[in-house]
């Protein structure tokens, strides 16, 4: 129902009203989209494009966090600024070696993995992440128990069939 300003009760402005009137009803659009479902994850061109885009997102994030300009990255890589521009515009074809050079220049990790499609924790298979320096976790023994706790050794488990293999 339209009000005196030519709007629906929902407050749809008149200029959008005409657009909506011309749109296909939702159900028809959904049926059309579902009529030929596409599994994009099985399309190499799509997968390659996505992996590239995700890698570049990582590069941009690293540059942002380090306040690094395109010129700065170009200088670190020993390449021209134009090359970096081309790279970030996805107009350059780059190899894993190039990706590794960029990751090392940014002091980030490059992670290229093949994962199962149904792995709920993995989206895409290539990412650039900050390097996490791992230090061994210190062994903490509460002082009141320190005399009672002995390190577990293979000798202490003699006769245990479960460990025999």
């Amino acid at each position, binding site marked *: 129902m339209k009000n005196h300003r030519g709007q629906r009760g*929902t407050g749809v402005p008149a200029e959008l009203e005409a*657009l*909506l009137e011309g*749109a296909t*009803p*939702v159900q028809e659009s*959904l049926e059309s*989209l*579902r009529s030929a479902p596409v599994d*994009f994850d099985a399309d190499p061109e799509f997968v390659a494009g996505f992996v590239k885009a995700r890698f570049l997102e990582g590069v941009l994030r690293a540059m942002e966090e380090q306040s690094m300009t395109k010129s700065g990255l170009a200088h670190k890589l020993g390449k021209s600024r134009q090359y970096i521009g081309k790279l970030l515009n996805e107009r350059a074809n780059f190899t894993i070696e190039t990706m590794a050079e960029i990751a090392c220049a940014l002091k980030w990790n490059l992670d290229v993995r093949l994962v199962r499609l149904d792995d709920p924790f993995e989206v895409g298979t290539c990412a650039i992440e900050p390097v996490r320096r791992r230090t061994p976790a210190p062994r903490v023994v509460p002082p009141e128990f320190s005399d009672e706790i002995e390190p577990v050794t293979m000798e202490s488990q003699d006769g245990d069939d479960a460990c025999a293999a």
Partner: protein
Amino acid sequence: MSGSNRANVNIKVDRPIGLSEIPDVKTDWQTEHTIRALVVDERSLALSFLAELKSRHFGDYRKIMKVAKLVACQPRVRNENQVRPGKKYRETYEMKGGHARLFFFYGPQEEVVCTHGFLKSKASRKEQSLEFAKCDTFRNLFYEGMGKGLSR
């Protein structure tokens, strides 16, 4: 429309603003944001646009889906070659895929709400600015609807 058909659209008869899933956007992709199409009175410009894009310009449709996947799995997309925020309407964004543009805004519950799209035929800044304005109008409508209990 039958009750079973309506199950895919999160709106009720008395709630004219809602959100719908987008069929080719997989659930697995949506680790950071859920990608949805805005539905107003059982019509969605975004779904209508995507259905036409898929049938007539599949290459651009594939590119838009790639960007949709990127948007779905990233907190925010930095690459303006993929996603560009509006200059005047900073809360609105466009996904870029070839000549296709799909406009969206971030909703309050990690959802990405796609409002509409268009095929860019020439570099017209005025035209693009108008599309961002449309997206912003839909955004206001969405939040207004939420406030009045018209959506969700």
